């Protein structure tokens, strides 16, 4: 099986590229390769975590996966009941139909929900716009999702601006659970939540995946969360997959030097620990540079760089069953 593939896929990304071209007055156009040749399949009921540093292309990839951003090249396919829908090219009625099947929980709960709405309305409006009109059904569905995301019903009367950050994030999750989507892109769904609520949200996602077969692309910067939440982890670097494999294996036996650096930098709760022992040997935000370096995109920051890395692009190689990394060390 090729890298990133899985049994019974519900969504397939094939050699996906998303480039942004920005043209400023009197300046030459620059191209940002936000996603650069990614192939990945997400299985029915599977949770796949996307990790990688700020600017590595996680959000862009998530948006392209559900058709909110058009691919520059490559293909996104939704597979349901043996029917294949080309998400990247969908228009009109097909596109509208996809909006219910493919959902996103936005990275930032502060801008994604109108703060001047009552919580109840913020849930009622999307339901009604998808044709659920019966008052009894609306209120039953809303009570149900509130329970599923663990928010007390009393909050329904509040305005969204009255909620704390974490409460807002959960309303965002409730909104996508209203429907019964095939796939949800959850963009940092737990980063705003305290530790004691993270577990709850992950359980909600697990349960939805198991009981309803909903697939999730779970974007997070937190490796500990990725491990708990997902069956597979894909590590993204400058728009490319650096490593992908079963969650436990990626954490316990990482191959790519970038994955290793991410793991080393993970915070611990012993004061000052990271200072002393966890000095990260990669640094700087190169993800912003518009021109990708030749060879391996990670080579300028790699502590183990070899000559070959500077000229040749490494392909993903299967190093143990289902566990792939793109690095010339292997």
């Amino acid at each position: 099986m090729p890298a990133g593939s899985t049994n019974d896929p519900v969504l397939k990304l094939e050699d996906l590229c998303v480039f942004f071209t920005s043209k400023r007055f009197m300046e030459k156009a620059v191209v940002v390769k936000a996603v650069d040749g990614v192939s990945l399949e997400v299985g029915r009921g599977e949770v796949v975590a996307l990790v990688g540093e700020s600017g590595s292309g996680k959000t862009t990839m998530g948006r392209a996966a559900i058709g909110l951003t058009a691919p520059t090249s490559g293909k996104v396919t939704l597979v349901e009941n043996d029917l294949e829908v080309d998400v990247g090219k969908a228009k009109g009625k097909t596109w509208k139909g996809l909006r219910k099947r493919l959902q996103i929980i936005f990275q930032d709960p502060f801008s994604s929900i109108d703060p001047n709405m009552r919580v109840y309305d913020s849930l009622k409006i999307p339901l009604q716009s998808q044709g659920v009109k019966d008052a009894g059904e609306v209120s039953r569905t809303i009570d149900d999702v509130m329970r599923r995301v663990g928010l007390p019903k009393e909050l329904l009367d509040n305005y969204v601006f009255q909620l704390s950050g974490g409460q807002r994030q959960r309303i965002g999750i409730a909104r996508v659970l209203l429907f019964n989507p095939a796939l949800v892109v959850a963009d940092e769904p737990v980063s705003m939540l305290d530790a004691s609520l993270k577990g709850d949200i992950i359980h909600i996602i697990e349960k939805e995946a198991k009981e309803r077969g909903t697939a999730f692309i779970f974007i997070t910067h937190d490796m500990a969360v990725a491990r708990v939440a997902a069956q597979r982890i894909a590590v993204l670097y400058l728009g490319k997959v650096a490593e992908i494999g079963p969650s436990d294996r990626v954490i316990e036996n990482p191959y790519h030097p970038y994955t290793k650096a991410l793991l080393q930098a993970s915070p611990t709760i012993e004061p000052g620990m990271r200072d002393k022992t966890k000095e990260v040997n990669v640094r700087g935000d190169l993800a912003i540079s518009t021109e990708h370096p030749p060879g391996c995109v990670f080579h300028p920051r790699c502590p183990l760089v070899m000559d070959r890395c500077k000229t040749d692009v490494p392909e993903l190689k299967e190093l143990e069953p289902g566990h792939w990394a793109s690095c010339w060390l292997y």
Partner: protein
Amino acid sequence: MTLLEAKGLSIVFPTSRGEVKAVDQVDISLGEREFVGIAGESGAGKSTLALGMLRLLTPPGKVVAGEVLFHGTDILKLTDEQFRKDYRWTKLAMVFQGSMNGFTPVFTIGSQLKEVLALHGREASDSTISKLLETVDLDNSIASRYPHELSGGQKQRAFIAMALSLEPEVLVTDEPTTALDVITQATIINLLKRLRKELGISVLLITHDLALISEAVERLYVMYAGGVVEEGPSIDFFAKPKHPYSQGLLTSTPTLTSNEIKGIPGFLPDLANLPPGCRFTPRCPFAMEVCKRDYPPLKGVGGERVACWLY
């Protein structure tokens, strides 16, 4: 020496269900060049406290009791005009939760940074801007981009650069790194530490992430349901948290070696209908009769102060 101090601060939000007591008689202090953390779960009142201390509360939220002293002056008593002119951004700066939306969509990041500098009579050249961006590990080319052309973490860092641009005495940061990967997180925390050393800035860091606090701060407060339940030096706290809530918070921090995340069972109480005793009672594994009846005061326990009837 104490630089910024809240004394008996109470903040409420009137709602249809009654008054939500988001912050209830809180005492908090920040010393010169000190790095202090406020931890607590979602809804504990952390953001409200910070907004109240920096006069950034929006109605209907209001301070109903207490004072906020900065260099001994009660800044809550100043006129808006005085506060804006002499304190906001130049002496007291804040990076809000969700500040990645703090930028106006129609101007480039660079022009917005320049505007803030120019407004306060500072030099606003291209090289100042690129230096500012460099402090938060952002490439110069960010300056010519519009906010929507940045990733979430890039926007968050650009906002931190803006808050730092006027070299304030106090920087309050509310969840400054929640959406950032660990490498960038470490960079930001190291940056805050460095600023404290080099510029003598005092930092108040608000987060639900105890791991983050443990790396950064010298002293911390733990808030629960609007009140401070534990306060003390990091060393003592992390060696052995005293309050049952703090203990729960610490054990529920996700680690790389675990396959599950254990939460503290139960919910925060309704802040509009607070029970009379300790607010953590319904979730507390050690709850006693007295806990339901009386609110425990903060008491000295081995170098820390703890509000719990166990001590």
